[in-house]
């Protein structure tokens, strides 16, 4: 090991499956391509029966998955804790629902995510823009700590370079 792999500039042009950019002080943009039709990806994000099956990467279905899909409607996604009870909850309100192209939801008026689904051939690109109340909040989110139990090491920690337009 010469340790060169990670600092080799040429490698920076190879994006991993996810690209993360910070186009503004209060924004984080996460983009990823999915090998599925756009309406299906949209459905996977907006129907409780689907969200319950994938939101927890451990494969355990959610303990609670409620979705009231209308502007102003609430959602509540609760992971199952190791002891079988309710674990971490992710909740908020829908702001905008435009199937299959756009979905906006937030946990507060200042903190919200805009999901844009675009067709790329037979695949779907999901671009998620997370808007935070402040730069501090944005930075805190970037440094978020994932539960030790779920933080399995991924082999490929792709080098960071923002998306090139």
């Amino acid at each position, binding site marked *: 090991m010469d340790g060169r792999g*990670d*600092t*080799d*500039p*040429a490698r*920076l*042009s190879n994006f*991993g*499956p*996810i690209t*993360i*950019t*910070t*186009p*503004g*002080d209060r924004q*984080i943009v*996460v983009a*990823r391509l*999915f*090998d*599925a*039709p*756009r*309406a*299906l*990806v*949209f*459905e*996977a994000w907006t129907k409780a029966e*689907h969200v319950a*099956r*994938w*939101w*927890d*990467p451990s*494969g355990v279905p959610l303990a609670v998955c409620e979705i009231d899909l209308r502007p102003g409607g609430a959602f509540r996604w609760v992971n199952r804790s190791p002891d079988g009870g309710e674990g971490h909850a992710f909740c908020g309100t829908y702001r905008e629902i435009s*199937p*299959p192209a756009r979905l906006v939801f937030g946990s507060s008026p200042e903190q919200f995510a805009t999901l844009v689904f675009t067709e790329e051939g037979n695949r779907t690109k*999901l671009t998620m823009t997370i808007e935070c109340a402040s730069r501090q909040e944005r930075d805190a*989110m*970037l*440094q*978020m*700590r*994932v539960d030790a139990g*779920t*933080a*399995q090491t*991924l082999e490929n*920690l*792709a*080098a*960071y*370079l*923002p*998306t*090139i*337009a």
Partner: protein
Amino acid sequence: MAMDRRADHLSLVFAALADSTRREILSRLASGDADVSELMKPFDLRQPTISKHLSVLERAGLVVRKRDAQRRPRTLVAVPLRDVDDWIAPFRRFWEQKFASLDKYLNEMQNEEKTHGRKRRYRSGTTE
């Protein structure tokens, strides 16, 4: 104190990366050194503009000027990008896991469609 300095430096890097032209300049430099006039071509920008972007990138430690007499080519320094990457690694891992899980589930959904031979159309507003 060391943490503060690191955070300050990260702020410079983030600010430098916040501009799409500067990201493109970095991308160009990732494929090889280039001087100002070589950088001007693909971006259709005037020299002072490019120089301004370069000085922001230099301040963030992302680009250095090589001592090559007249040409003064710029070269990419990848280390600060790694710092940024290390810093956002937990966030990246979080979404990589979520999205890998979604990917797997989308595959299952599509396989189910096939095995059950249902001709369901995934179109907006189509609910059965």
